[in-house]
């Protein structure tokens, strides 16, 4: 129904928008092959050769193995803790019977409320609480990350668990399942798709998180990736090339991750928004 001319215009606009959005990434890639003095003296020139010095410098200054290691460490612990506790609480809220239905709704609403809370009001008090509990270094990030994931996880898990028919539980109980068997051997395997979305969404969140990390991490040896990215501001006062190369080494794995899990990432990000 759409005329050919109209369709061509639509294609052109689509390509234009895509290029405009992608351009900053491409520009970073181009710059990463230019020497620092070239970036400073002739910003628009294209690199003459594939000069990898910036990457060498970046690897020399930033301990990427450690940055990725720390991020990975915080990520795994936070995810294990948050998945266990929110699976438990969501199971109760979605599949158990409450004599007082209002209570059930109230607890659910209370847990969901966190979606509208900005982390910035939490930074200093959480820092204080961590000090009080004796949590220091990268471990201090675990509870803030677990806590800020609760609302999102509850939203997705409760929604999904409610959609599973209650006959499953009845059949399992008649077959002699106890509550642990029911939760772990019957319900949990069915929850895989939503757990995948939660895991991927939270991995991305922790990978990118900066405000909490900047407050809790004092020691360079504890730095996570986003802290590493901010770190070279001081170190390389003028080494723009090094900054670009380091950024690319953080972006590329993220983009690959996005490429692989695109469906879950988009689903997680939009589900949290639309249902919230």
């Amino acid at each position, binding site marked *: 129904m*759409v005329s050919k001319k109209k*369709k061509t215009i639509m*294609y052109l*606009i*689509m390509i234009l*928008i*895509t290029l405009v*959005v*992608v351009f*900053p990434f491409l*520009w*970073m890639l181009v*710059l990463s092959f230019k020497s620092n003095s070239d970036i400073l003296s002739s910003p*628009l020139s294209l690199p003459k050769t594939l000069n990898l010095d910036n990457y060498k410098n970046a690897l020399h200054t930033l301990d990427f193995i450690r940055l990725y290691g720390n991020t990975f460490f915080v990520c795994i612990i936070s995810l294990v803790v948050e998945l266990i*506790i929110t699976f438990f*609480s969501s*199971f*109760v809220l979605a599949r*158990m019977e*409450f004599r007082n239905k209002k209570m059930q709704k109230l*607890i659910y609403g*209370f847990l969901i409320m*966190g979606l*509208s*809370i*900005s982390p*910035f*009001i*939490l930074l*200093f*008090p*959480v820092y*204080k*609480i961590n000090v009080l509990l004796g949590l220091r270094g990268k471990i201090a990030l675990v*509870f803030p990350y677990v*806590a*800020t994931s*609760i609302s999102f996880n509850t939203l997705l898990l409760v929604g999904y668990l409610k959609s599973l028919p209650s006959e499953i539980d009845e059949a399992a*109980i008649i077959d002699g399942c106890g*509550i642990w068997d*029911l939760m772990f051997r019957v319900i949990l395997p069915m929850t895989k798709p939503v757990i995948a979305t939660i895991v991927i969404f939270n991995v991305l969140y922790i*990978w*990118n998180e*900066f405000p909490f990390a900047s407050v809790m991490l004092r020691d360079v040896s504890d730095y996570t*990736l*986003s802290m590493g*990215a901010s770190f070279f501001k001081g170190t390389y006062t003028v080494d*723009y090339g090094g900054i*670009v190369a380091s*950024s690319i080494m*953080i*972006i590329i794995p993220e*983009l690959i*991750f996005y490429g692989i899990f*695109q469906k879950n*990432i988009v689903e997680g*990000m*939009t589900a949290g*928004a*639309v249902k919230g």
Partner: protein
Amino acid sequence: MHWLSKRKYKIGLLIPTLLVYSVFIVIPIIIAVGYSFTKYSGIGKARFYGLSNYIRLFSDKVFWISLKNTMIIFVLAFVLLLTISFLVALLLNNRLAGADFSKALVFSPAIIAPIIVGIIWVYILDPNIGIINNVLDAIGASSLKHKWIGGEVFSPYSIAVIYFWQQLGYLVTIFIAGLKMIPGDVLEAAQIDGASGVQKVRYVIIPMMRTTISTVSVLIITGVFKIFEIVQQTTGGGPNHLSETLVTYSYSMTFSSSDYGYGMSLATFTFILSLVITGIYSRITREKEA
């Protein structure tokens, strides 16, 4: 089912989540509000200070600057994001070859660490090494050169543009999800009645997308009050606090100046302001619907 719904199971299974949530979300908010009524430098004990921190807000020039900047970012980002992401969604919702690929690429800035987003844009907006000013030089339009970041005027506008770049694809995706929910026969009926493209959008699509539009609006409102890393990376709030936003100013008062009481009053103010704007917004849209 209900013989497993024993009280001790329910309580036992709920407690870990409730505990972590209370200790790391709910209590911190109470603590933050509490500190906002004190004078506290981190050494010794916090001293009760009544409303003094809040009174100080009104006479603090930097507070007004950061409020103004936050509002500039909010208004500009709101207008740009709401209109353009809607239009892009309409475009990409057509069955164009490559639309999915384009959507995936446009979405990608939303998954990058915001701190890296800030770094990327330094290379575009920086007055000396940034591409914009250098291109303007190269085409002989040097008079259009400005200090896009780090100057006295343009920083908040630039922040809004960066935020726009970061969020566009994300909001487009949400709009497309909303568009997909409009039943096809409604659009066909409009088509048969001879509605033009613009009329269809104006009289069918927009009214039917009300929920999605308000979701997107609330996301933009709450999102603007979470912008932090971009400002830190591009301007650091400078020069002379001129590009500070409420969030960065509160952060710098708390963690750089160690003026914890005042920092928490800024944080509390910001938190309440974002809730109020969200509240007003949903009030207005609800009235319109009624």
